[in-house]
């Protein structure tokens, strides 16, 4: 039994205040190092002995990492921006409602005051609540290192449970969320036992609508595979089609596709069977809300 009152692992803690200082620290790859943002995931893991880095580097004292800006129709969320600030920035942007809901459902007040969206992404939990919204909105991440920077689509960045394609000398600098056109509606839903729990299943749907025609439909499902799954084939069924009703044959076909495509497992939170059944049902609910929203109603 571990003692969660203290961290038994000895480590050196660094809090650089500039990117230059951070790159210098990351250049030394001889010591096992973890980058830490809010620490809401890493610190409990260190307490439980599941992670024991020799160096921990905080990103939270670098001012430029806390910025949230809109540039050329792209919402840029700095890696050290706390979730409360991200939620506030999203709340004025109705088309990315799904991201706002995902960010707000990560945890309780205290967690929103500590944690960051970059931390949520880099932890790479298949159940991450901010990821379905980000994936359906076509987000990318900007990675920086002393050698320069690169932009990677979020779907290519997430490589598996706890795994991303970040290099040891790189830091996630910001998340880029393209703001969709006004005829877009989005919705996120999370199934949980009680509030602030980790998701049994979470889902985000982003719909672009022109009258009664669905121009495009993006769906991402979390907690049902090694990473959050972006299900492109739904767009093959619904894209360009007229939507006659919330339970039309077409929607049911898309829901069945979602249930068939996910690869859930049995774990402490749910069974695979439950997840498959629920995925189809909540896809239909969430699609309907996003669909109505795309018309401009705040349903």
């Amino acid at each position, binding site marked *: 039994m571990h003692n*969660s*009152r*203290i*961290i*038994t*692992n*000895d*480590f*050196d*803690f660094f*809090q650089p205040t500039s990117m230059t200082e951070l790159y210098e620290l990351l250049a030394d790859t001889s010591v096992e190092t973890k980058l830490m943002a809010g*620490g*809401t995931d890493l*610190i*409990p893991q*260190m*307490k*439980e002995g599941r992670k024991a880095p020799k160096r*921990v580097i*905080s990103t*939270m004292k670098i001012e430029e990492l806390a910025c949230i800006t809109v540039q050329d129709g792209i919402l840029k969320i700095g890696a050290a921006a706390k979730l*409360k600030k991200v939620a506030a920035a999203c709340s004025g942007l109705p088309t990315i409602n799904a991201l706002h809901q995902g960010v707000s459902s990560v*945890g*309780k*007040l*205290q*967690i929103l*005051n*500590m944690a960051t969206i970059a931390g949520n992404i880099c932890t790479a939990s298949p159940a991450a609540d901010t990821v379905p919204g980000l994936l359906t909105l076509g987000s990318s991440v900007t990675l920086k290192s002393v050698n320069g920077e690169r932009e990677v689509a979020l779907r290519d960045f997430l490589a598996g449970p706890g795994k991303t394609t970040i290099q040891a000398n790189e830091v996630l600098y910001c998340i880029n969320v393209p703001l969709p056109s006004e005829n877009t509606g989005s919705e996120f839903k999370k199934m949980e036992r009680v*509030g*602030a729990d980790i998701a049994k299943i979470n889902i985000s749907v982003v719909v672009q609508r022109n009258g009664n025609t669905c121009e495009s439909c993006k769906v991402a499902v979390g907690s049902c595979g090694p990473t959050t799954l972006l299900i492109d084939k739904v767009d093959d069924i619904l894209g360009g089609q007229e939507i006659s009703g919330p339970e039309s044959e077409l929607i049911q076909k898309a829901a069945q596709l979602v249930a068939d495509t996910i690869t859930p497992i049995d774990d402490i939170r749910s069974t695979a069977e439950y997840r498959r059944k629920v995925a189809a049902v909540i896809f239909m609910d969430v699609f309907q809300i996003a669909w109505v929203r795309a018309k401009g109603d705040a349903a």
Partner: protein
Amino acid sequence: MNKQHITLNINREEYDVVVTDNELLSNVIHDTLGLTGTKYGCGTGECGACTVLVNGDPVLACITLVTAVAGAEIITIEGVAPAPGKLDPIQDAFLEQAAVQCGFCTPGMILVAKDLLVRNPHPTEEEIRETIRGNICRCTGYTSIIRAIQQAADPTICCQSKP
């Protein structure tokens, strides 16, 4: 691992402490400084018993490295009252509404309520419930806790616990 000397600003007073990099804010507050109002509950950021305000925001001291908050303004339950011998209106309301049973969750509950009422002086019941979502009361006295926060926001709410 090196020991280092940091200054913590807790309840408007400065404390010079010697800490190691892996030390947690909750343990320094509770064990080193003897401010025992901040409770250690789950240790993993689930229960909210260790809540303190850092620059006004409720955070979990049991998963905060102490060196990360050097120089920040920290308020614990001991610093909520305006002066020695006086109570904050939220504390008064908790007493009046008998919102304290074993008392273990109370410091965290009062600190999140404090933050809520600063941001939103007239919260709805739903907003209060949302605010205390991350604070677990195992005596399950949530109803009187919610009533106490309502009373602190609006002192005209009559005490219903007294005969």
